[in-house]
């Protein structure tokens, strides 16, 4: 028994070293790297004692939450560290030279030629005033290759290779004429133009819809295999890791906490932090069966329609976007209903109609039998407090010059509560959301993203609502923080007997918190049902596509349940 085990171990060890010899060429190795932040930053070193390698033809995922320093090493490789940030120790070896010792000119010669990079925000990563073709051609120009005519021809080939629809048209298009996914393809085409040895992808799919994300991931993997390129893939999402990584490097507070083979890290994470990150993503978790009490509905939406018209006037034809088309759904008291859809599905418009930030064109919004969509003026003001909203962006949704306590108290004060009482209540609410009453006197910038979202929740609670509309309330947060905020919402819901309309693009998040899920596309409801049914037995093709697009869904992941 022991002998067999021993021989098996040695066997696998030899094959392991053999494959290692085949791919012995290490494309990039980072050794003992320290990167110092400017004085006054929250810590001295962005990256501390970091060493890892990227081998030829592999995808190396660098995983971490915001502030983990995961992008810093990549920026150092590119020679694109922000002003005031610089490496103070260690070396980065690439193609036989230490990148940290290069002059800016030498480094520039490598960028685009030997190392390509793609970025997180496809919407802003292209120059809005230049045609797509010209921006791709620039890569050749930067390295003095080809004639202008040949550059255009190559740009077209590249666009075809990255799978842009109508490439002949796209090459003449301006970035604003392309969708986010198409723009990301253009950026990938640019990064691959000169067939670099190493591609650095910095959160390239984070800003994209799930189905688009799945397509882009597939494209990157496909190109990587076809060209035998090495990829350094930076992400915060273990689902993505499961989808494409060969090896993984998990970072936290600037240090590596775990480094290894993707399969072993995912299935058998050693470090507690890695375990927590993986656990925070219920990639295969089926939502538990939840009893829904069949009481009278709190919210009834009947045949809601909303059309946005861009005023054409005299110069241009008016454009119509049907944001909501005949949307009907009900929400029982104490229930959490998830509205799931991709960008442009109308899910946010629905939420905004429910809180009456938007006025629906037709249809009924019955809250406890009161038709909200008909209310005007004083009557609306009286009912309004019953439905409150938590906004997506915890950074933009709080006035930076208003103290937190006041931000929460403003609602009640506007509704007639004396200021002192309202501020006292704000303190209590901050206590409830786990920030402590002392937060009243502080300004929003003193809080982290997760904490600000707690403030947002406290603000929504201040008016004693019955229904809370949470519009992508956790989308801007790191996964571990996401889990905490969701937990808080769940707890508050029970304690204050609230109902929740939870709008999200992320099915995984919806699975965690929702009793029922409504799937929307192009302003229509595609499918609705219990969370369990949507996940286990989706009826509509679109729902199935959405589910299949969840990164890491099929991959083996450490049991989380």
């Amino acid at each position: 028994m022991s002998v067999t085990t021993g021989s098996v171990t040695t066997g696998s060890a030899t094959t392991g070293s053999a494959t290692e010899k085949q791919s012995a060429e290490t494309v990039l190795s980072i050794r003992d790297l320290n990167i110092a932040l400017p004085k006054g930053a929250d810590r001295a070193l962005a990256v501390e004692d970091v060493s890892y390698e990227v081998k030829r033809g592999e995808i190396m995922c660098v995983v971490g939450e915001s502030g983990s320093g995961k992008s810093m090493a990549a920026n150092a490789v590119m020679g694109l560290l922000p002003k005031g940030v610089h490496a103070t120790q260690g070396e980065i070896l690439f193609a036989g030279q230490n990148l940290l010792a290069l002059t800016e000119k030498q480094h520039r010669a490598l960028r685009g030629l030997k190392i390509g990079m793609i970025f997180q925000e496809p919407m802003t990563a292209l120059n809005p005033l230049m045609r797509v073709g010209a921006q791709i051609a620039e890569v050749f120009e930067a390295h003095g290759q080809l004639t202008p005519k040949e550059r255009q021809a190559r740009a077209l080939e590249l666009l075809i290779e990255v799978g842009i629809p109508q490439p002949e048209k796209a090459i003449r298009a301006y970035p604003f004429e392309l969708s986010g996914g198409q723009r990301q393809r253009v950026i990938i085409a640019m990064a691959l133009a000169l067939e670099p040895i190493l591609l650095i992808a910095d959160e390239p799919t984070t800003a994209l819809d799930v189905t688009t994300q799945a397509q882009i991931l597939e494209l990157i993997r496909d190109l990587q295999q076809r060209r035998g390129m090495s990829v350094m893939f930076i992400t915060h999402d273990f689902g993505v890791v499961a989808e494409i990584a060969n090896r993984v490097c998990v970072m936290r507070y600037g240090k590596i906490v775990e480094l290894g083979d993707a399969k072993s890290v995912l299935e058998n994470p050693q470090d507690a932090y890695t375990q927590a990150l993986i656990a925070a993503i219920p990639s295969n978790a089926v939502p538990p069966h939840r009893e829904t009490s069949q009481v009278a509905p709190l919210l009834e939406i009947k045949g809601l329609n909303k059309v946005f018209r861009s005023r054409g006037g005299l110069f241009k034809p008016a454009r119509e976007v049907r944001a909501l088309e005949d949307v009907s759904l009900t929400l029982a008291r104490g229930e959490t209903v998830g509205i799931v859809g991709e960008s442009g599905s109308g899910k946010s418009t629905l939420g905004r109609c429910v809180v009456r930030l938007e006025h629906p064109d037709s249809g009924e919004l019955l809250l406890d039998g009161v038709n909200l969509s008909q209310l005007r003026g004083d009557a609306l003001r009286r009912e309004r407090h019953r439905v409150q909203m938590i906004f997506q962006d915890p950074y933009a949704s709080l006035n930076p010059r208003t103290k937190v306590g006041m931000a929460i108290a403003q609602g009640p004060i506007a509704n007639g509560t004396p200021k002192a009482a309202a501020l006292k209540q704000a303190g209590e609410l901050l206590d409830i959301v786990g920030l402590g009453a002392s937060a009243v006197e502080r300004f929003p910038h003193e809080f982290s993203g997760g904490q600000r979202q707690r403030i947002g929740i406290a603000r929504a609670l201040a008016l004693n609502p019955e229904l809370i509309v949470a519009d992508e309330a956790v989308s801007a947060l790191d996964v571990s923080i996401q889990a905490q905020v969701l937990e808080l919402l769940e707890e508050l819901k029970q304690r204050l007997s609230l109902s929740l309309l939870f709008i999200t693009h992320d099915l995984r998040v919806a699975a965690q918190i929702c009793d029922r899920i409504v799937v929307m596309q192009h302003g229509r409801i595609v499918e609705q049902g219990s969370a369990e049914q949507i996940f286990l037995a989706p009826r509509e093709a679109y729902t199935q596509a959405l589910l299949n697009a969840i990164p890491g869904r099929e991959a083996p992941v450490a049991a989380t349940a």
Partner: protein
Amino acid sequence: MVYARLIIMRLLKAVVVLFLIVIFNFFLIQMAPGDPAAILAGEAGATDQEFLNQLRERFGLDQPLYVQLWRYVSGIAMLDFGYSYRLGVPVFDLIMARLPATLLLTGTAFVLSLVLGIVAGSMAAARVKKPSGSIIMALALLFYATPLFWVALMSVVVFSVYLGWLPAYGLYTVGAGHTGFALALDVAKHLVLPATTLALFFMAIYTRMTRTSMLDAAQQDYVKTARAKGLKPSIIQRRHVLRNALLPIITLAGLQAGQMVGGAILTETVFAWPGIGRLMFEALQQRDYNLLLGIFFFSAALVIVFNIITDLVYSLADPRIKKGAS
């Protein structure tokens, strides 16, 4: 095609706006105390009621208000702005005679301030936190804060009186009888001081705006993309940063261009430049209302024309707007 339609629609709107401006101006002048006939008569030393009535009759001032308004508006529709009370010459002819000098001055100042401002602003942006960049910004602030008339007077004192390099006033040397190239050179010499004086203020604004706008653009993601391509800094600055940074400058340039007729009163007065500005100043002093109204109308028309041009330039510079308008 799209542009043609856009321009036609804008011109139609402009006609409506101009019509309203004419009516507004007319009533504005009516509200001013003292009628021109009384002033003319007073200056002639005759307080004779007969003479006064005669004057009123000649200018049509004895008619009811609506008749006066109708005559005025229908006149303007045929480019007839009436006669200057004071000079007895058609207002249109007076303005046309003065317009070239003003456009020469303001146009030169416009180009000068725009070009120098953008160059200085780009330089300051590239030299941020360096002494040379700070010097540019300090100068810009100085020009921005210094009153125009003071700059004008001081430049006369220094360059004309003290150094004797440049003429202090006028459009050309009277009595020198220059023709052809010699005349052009003479006018150019006379132009230097007033044009520079007029340009300084806007140049300072362009400098500050270009710098801010470029520093802002340099932070954008697409600049990082450009760097990741391995492009040279000079190309990145010109093609990616400056081009995007110029968009707000266009708006501002449109505003300045709109002031080309009426914006040089002070400069023209100090340098005795025979342009619209001085004509307006004199008309104001002498209550030559018909002339004033004519100048108002021309200024307003020019503002509207430059608004349209600005929008067109903007849509050429920013593809997002062109498609939006189509």
